[in-house]
């Protein structure tokens, strides 16, 4: 009896010893070393050599680890190596792995508020994957987010030039040009959308509506600038819009998209049009 119980008792004692010592190890565990563990992450090219033909799966594992690592918001100094992990280690293992570029950029721009580093990561993604428009598209939205509309338009323009990019990207270029105040450039882009034979009916309807609105905005802007110049030089508001042409501030008076003359309030110097209020095609 004693002989048969001995192995069982030995087994239980060993299990209890392992359990207790493990609990002790956890209790003695040093406070988290912050980003120090990242110092031991090897460079991508060395990892690739060590992967012996399994670089793609090692890239997946580093990416999965990085997601868990950066999901911990308590880490001090958590943004120091984002660009290194997402822009060097993973791309060196698998440059065609699309998601790490944009996820790293998202962490940098949204959480770290570091637009330039985020854009650098997206640019790298676009460079390594010239047939992917998504990086330039996301870069455009990041610039839009900080109200840098010209830069956003430039990114959307590059995205639209990528082969097989969705046709509506040109609409974003036009939209950003309008938001940035470059109304004439926006009009030129919308005319491009309208003239595109591949455009569907919805795109054409949007283009027509935008052209109508932008035409009014651009004309009103030109007219009000001419009125301001007239007032500065003559010391009084023009009594009628015709005065602007006669005084040489405008070559001719524009008509609104309905072919009607713009209304002018000489007291306030403002120009309006009914066409700007029309919605729908």
């Amino acid at each position, binding site marked *: 009896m004693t002989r048969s119980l001995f192995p069982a008792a030995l087994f239980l004692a060993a299990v209890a010893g392992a359990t207790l010592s493990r609990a002790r190890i956890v209790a003695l565990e040093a406070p988290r070393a912050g980003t120090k563990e990242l110092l031991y992450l090897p460079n991508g090219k060395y990892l690739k050599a060590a992967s012996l*033909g399994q670089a793609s799966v090692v890239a*997946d594992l580093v*990416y999965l680890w990085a*997601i868990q690592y950066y999901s911990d918001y308590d880490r001090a100094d958590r943004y120091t190596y984002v660009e290194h992990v997402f822009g060097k280690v993973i791309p060196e293992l698998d440059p065609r792995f699309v998601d790490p570029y944009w996820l790293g950029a998202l962490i940098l721009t949204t959480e770290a508020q570091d637009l330039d580093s985020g854009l650098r990561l997206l640019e790298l993604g676009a460079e390594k994957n010239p047939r992917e428009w998504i990086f330039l598209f996301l870069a455009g939205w990041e610039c839009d987010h900080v109200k840098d509309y010209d830069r956003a338009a430039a990114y959307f323009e590059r995205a639209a030039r990528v082969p097989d990019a969705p046709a509506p990207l040109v609409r974003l270029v036009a939209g950003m040009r309008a938001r940035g105040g470059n109304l004439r450039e926006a009009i030129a882009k919308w005319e491009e959308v309208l003239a595109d034979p591949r455009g569907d009916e919805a795109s054409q309807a949007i283009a027509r509506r935008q052209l109508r609105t932008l035409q009014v905005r651009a004309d009103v802007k030109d007219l009000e600038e001419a009125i301001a110049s007239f007032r500065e030089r003559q010391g009084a508001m023009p009594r009628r819009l015709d005065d602007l042409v006669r005084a040489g501030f405008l070559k001719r008076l524009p008509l609104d998209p309905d072919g009607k003359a713009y209304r002018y309030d000489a007291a306030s110097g403002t120009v309006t049009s009914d066409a700007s209020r029309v919605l729908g095609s």
Partner: protein
Amino acid sequence: MTAIAAVALNTFREAIRDRVLYLLLAVALVVVAGSRFVAMLTVGSETKIVKDLGLAAVSIFGLLIAVFIGVSLVSKEIERRTVYTLLAQPVARWQFVAGKYAGLLLVLAANVLVVGGSVLAAVGLLGESPWGLVPAMALIFVELGVVAAFAILFSSFTNPILAAVGTFAVYVAGHLSWSFDLLKKRVTTGAGRQLCDILHAVLPNLDRLDLKADAVHGAAIPAGTFAAAAVYGLCYAAAVVVLACIVFERREFA
């Protein structure tokens, strides 16, 4: 030819009775099934991770099968002295070695079909066409054929432990053969540079048989590239098997 087929079938039957094979196959299938759960930890790229892990399972577990079963195929027969009975039959020594190699290839083909088939099914269940992975799997099989040829070669003149070490060493060197080019740029003496050239030419360039990344990213694999890689691997493996036959022919049994 009949003798080779008989040895091959016998080797295949013997291998499928080996518990190591089933253990490796079971772990490979668990990896493929588990890839769906691993993919849940990611942000995007779920299908890519399933494909990567699946192809890695086909490749790594195939390598383990090629090494652990391959290295003992010839030496076990010598150790158990069953080789004497076999060679007393109308079977030439080279036919014995070629048959052993063909049997090992059948085992590896079964591994690629079972594990690879489950990878294709897993990718298909995610709603994506899995057929782009087939060329990569075919070249994994060719690569395993090269490794198996080395396992048979080493097995024909040394014990299983040394044969396993040698086969793994060739596998590692085969995936690092590009480093000889790198080394050549740093070596100034003529002899060193020539040695780099020789090693680069002689060792199998296994990276040339790796189309996994192209297949996973859906890149078009030119038929010429695929065919050239397959022919390179098959010719290389054939050369190593011929070498193994020569070594075994010359071997004297005590």
